[in-house]
């Protein structure tokens, strides 16, 4: 149950101050694309809803009436006229809907000017996020968090390292698949700052359920500040314990899969950890990022996310404490 609490808190934490249950809802659009789709949804709701009611009412009448004497065909002519009218009505409504979705679809696929270029690579079961830049030394790699500036379209290249995943941030846009051997693309233009949540929408194996993405829309200035901070190498540990933790990290199994820029740890199979402590969730939205959950996670990842590739690395309690000290220092 404590596990569960940790997780729910994770979601709420990501929710921050806003109404928690809106952070992953298509009904609370916070970006152009989601809003456009929202209008289609309302149009659909009205047209389909009223048609549905019409049918039910007709059916009720038919049942309540029904005092014909049966066994003989009556009023074929009127019925056929009715049928023709009905078909015309449906066809007309469908044309409206088709035209509407064409229009919106075009807007979704429009190429934005001066977009923020991002590459998201899905891996079982987490997200690698690369902020691209013509200047390679400003190429930024992070994981399981997507921070966007308000009012600037973000053009996201979508790749997969293993199986098919699907990136879905309901509040900002629809979903797009990440398919091995292909490169897809999705554009989202956030209009409100705030905290949102994305999740993998295509079944991708054991932990499909725990592959979430912490999304945060920032004021452009705040975003630039964040990005520059992330570009810096890891802050070197200050306390003796943290220094010991760094030694543990680079000498034990951790360094094989994780990278911490500024150390010799250069693994890319696992999430980049250079600024781990500046994130708000652990293990792709599975846990809230704090000292306690981090320690629990390191002690036994399989208990929180069964099947994840991160093993429970055997180490002394002292080493693990030091490791946590070190990682919590990676702001």
């Amino acid at each position, binding site marked *: 149950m404590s596990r*569960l609490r940790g997780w729910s*808190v994770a*979601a709420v934490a990501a*929710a921050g101050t806003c109404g*928690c*249950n809106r952070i992953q*809802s*298509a*009904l609370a659009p916070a970006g152009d694309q989601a809003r456009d*789709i929202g209008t*289609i*949804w309302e149009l*659909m709701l009205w047209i*389909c*809803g009223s048609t*549905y009611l019409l*049918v*039910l009412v*007709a059916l009720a*009448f*038919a*049942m309540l009436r*029904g005092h014909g004497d*049966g*066994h*003989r*065909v009556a009023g074929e002519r009127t*019925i*056929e006229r*009715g*049928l023709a009218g*009905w*078909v015309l009505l449906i*066809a007309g409504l*469908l044309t409206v*809907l088709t035209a509407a*979705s064409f229009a*919106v*679809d075009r807007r*979704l*696929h429009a190429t934005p000017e001066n977009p923020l270029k991002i590459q998201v690579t899905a891996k079982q079961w987490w997200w690698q996020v690369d902020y691209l830049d013509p200047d390679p030394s400003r190429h930024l790699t992070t994981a399981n968090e997507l921070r966007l500036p308000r009012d600037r379209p973000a053009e996201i290249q979508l790749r997969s390292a*293993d*199986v*098919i995943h*699907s990136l*879905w941030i309901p509040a900002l*846009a*629809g*979903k*797009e698949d990440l398919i*091995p051997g292909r490169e897809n693309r999705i554009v989202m233009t956030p209009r409100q700052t705030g905290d949102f*949540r994305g*999740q993998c*929408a295509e*079944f991708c*194996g*054991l932990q499909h*359920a725990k592959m979430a993405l912490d999304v945060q829309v920032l004021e452009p200035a705040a975003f630039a500040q964040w990005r520059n901070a992330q570009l810096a190498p890891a802050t070197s540990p200050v306390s003796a314990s943290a220094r010991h933790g760094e030694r543990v990290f680079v000498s034990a199994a951790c360094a094989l899969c994780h990278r911490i820029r500024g150390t010799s740890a250069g693994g890319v199979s696992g999430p980049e950890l250079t600024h781990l402590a500046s994130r708000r969730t652990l293990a792709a939205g599975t846990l809230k990022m704090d000292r306690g959950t981090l320690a629990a996670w390191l002690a036994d990842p399989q208990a929180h996310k*069964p*099947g994840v590739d991160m093993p429970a690395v055997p180490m002394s309690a002292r080493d693990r404490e030091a490791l946590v000290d070190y990682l919590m220092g990676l702001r």
Partner: protein
Amino acid sequence: MSAPAAPVFPDDEARDQARKELAATWGERPGFIGWLATVDHKRIGRRYIVTAMVFFALAGALALVMRLQLMFPGGHVLGPDRYNQFFSMHGSAMMFLFAVPVMEAVAVFVIPLMLGTRNLAFPRLNAFSYWVYLFGGIMIFVAFAMDVGPEGGWFGYVPLTGPEFSPGKRTDFWAQMITFTEVAGLSVSVALVATILAMRAPGMTLRRIPLYAWSMLVTSLMVIFAMPAVMLASTFLISDRLVGTQFYNPAEGGDALLWQHLFWFFGHPEVYIIFLPALGMISSIVETFARRPIVAYPAMVLALVATGFLSFGLWVHHMFAAGLPPAGNGFYTAASMMIAIPSGVQVFCWIATLWTGTPRRVPGEPGRQRIAVPLLFVLGFFALFVLGGMTGVMVASVPLDLQVHDTYFVVAHFHYVLIGGAVFPLIGAFFFWFPKFTGRQLSERLGRWSFWLMFAGFNLTFFPMHRLGLMGMPRRVYTYPSGLGWELPNLVSTVGSWILAAGVLLFVLNVVRTLLVGKPAGDNPWGAPTLEWATSSPPPPWNFDEAPVVKSATPLWPPGRLLPVMTGLARHKREALVTSSTDAVPAVRWALPDPGIWPLWSALAITVLFVWSIFQAKGVAWGAIPVAIALTGWFWPKRSQPSLGGAKEK
């Protein structure tokens, strides 16, 4: 009492004599072997139905457990691995082992009777298909029990189901199960198409074919066109996994989307393959209880055919998020929207039929107004299916689909379409045809109870899912966090699922009770207009003493009218009448084969081949030997040829 047949015989003695001869010819061999060797479409049909319902119950049980797991956030009923196997088995069993087979099963039983012929064309192929289906189903459930159940969903997307990401033999058993069921499905479809096109009662022209037969004709043709695609896909997958071919390896020029195209080229028609027979059932029920022929019969037929065609043109709407060219997606949006038109036409015609008919009049009880249970389920169909159709229109729109695709909204949508659109009519049809199946009539009171339980339970279970999907809950998650507003809808849905289950359980009890103590039904308890009601309940092995002749689309209306028949079919051998495909003019007397054990042997041999080839490539070669032997035995030439001519109307 099959009154119309009476004038054929000078007196009862002659009739009894004739029936004695027919019984001698059409009777089964005694004992267990006879049971295994039967080629009687009614017995095979009943077996088919019972088997399919068993798989339905098993797959449903899986769903109940899944709902328990999802009742609260972070549930601990199932772990991720088990949950994934559960939902994969649920989908696979429902689609491959229940929905399609049960629809074909009912047809296997009803169609020959409805067409007034003595057996299905290719009766042994029919028997063979049942055995293959049975063995395939047993294989996958045994595998599941052995922890070798599928884990990649009923849609089995590569590369997740490929050799790298699905270790062991789980996916191989699943893919081979598809091969089993498709072989079975294709066999039945061929038999049904042949029967409907060539063995109709004399005079049953295209304009007089019952709509149910029309729907089964279209369905069977769709099966024949759609299923090879998925067999190809699953064979590619098996060879990728067993001998390392590269069909789905993106690095070597294979493509993950190849699977999706092949699969959905089958997978979307599949939905209509399940749904069209239900439409046929509804037509039969509505016609019967409205006491008048279906309005605008040609329009109905055209709607069926149009649906069949269109359903092949919209598989891509399952792949809108896969990044295909927008223009293409636009086309498939239009096509998907268009298919709403034929459905709309049918809904209109049914309502018009009820409108101009007398749906609440009870036969034999003047003045009483009551809605019979079969019709009740049809009304349920309207309420549920039309809603599902509306959400279907929504997901057909690319932009909206990009939001709701792979969410619980879609789960809600297709359960409304499949349960509302197929299972409700199916249960209705069971109530409707149960007299023919067993000679007894199901309890109407229990029937009403189970209807209302199912209807309420269904809506409780699936309506909240629409909202869940829009609030961002993806499909196929074994658990979910709290704090996203998903708690209440999930709770309601789980509660609903148990009510739904109770409804189904009550139906099963109803069946059992009826089989034990149900009141015998007459030949035609509903006063229905089609030929299956023109013989006894249950019908004799030879269905009809003499071939009935048809003069209208509703041959048994008005009641009491004499049904002309055609004499001359030999009684000392299993003869059926072959008629021309458009005007149903008698052409040939066709000696149908006797019962035989070879279909069973062939099915066993095929099973060995399929299962062996899961583990070893050489199983394909060596396993072919017993298959060859069995087929040789099956097709060893016999003396009986069709005896031409000699059919005269009386």
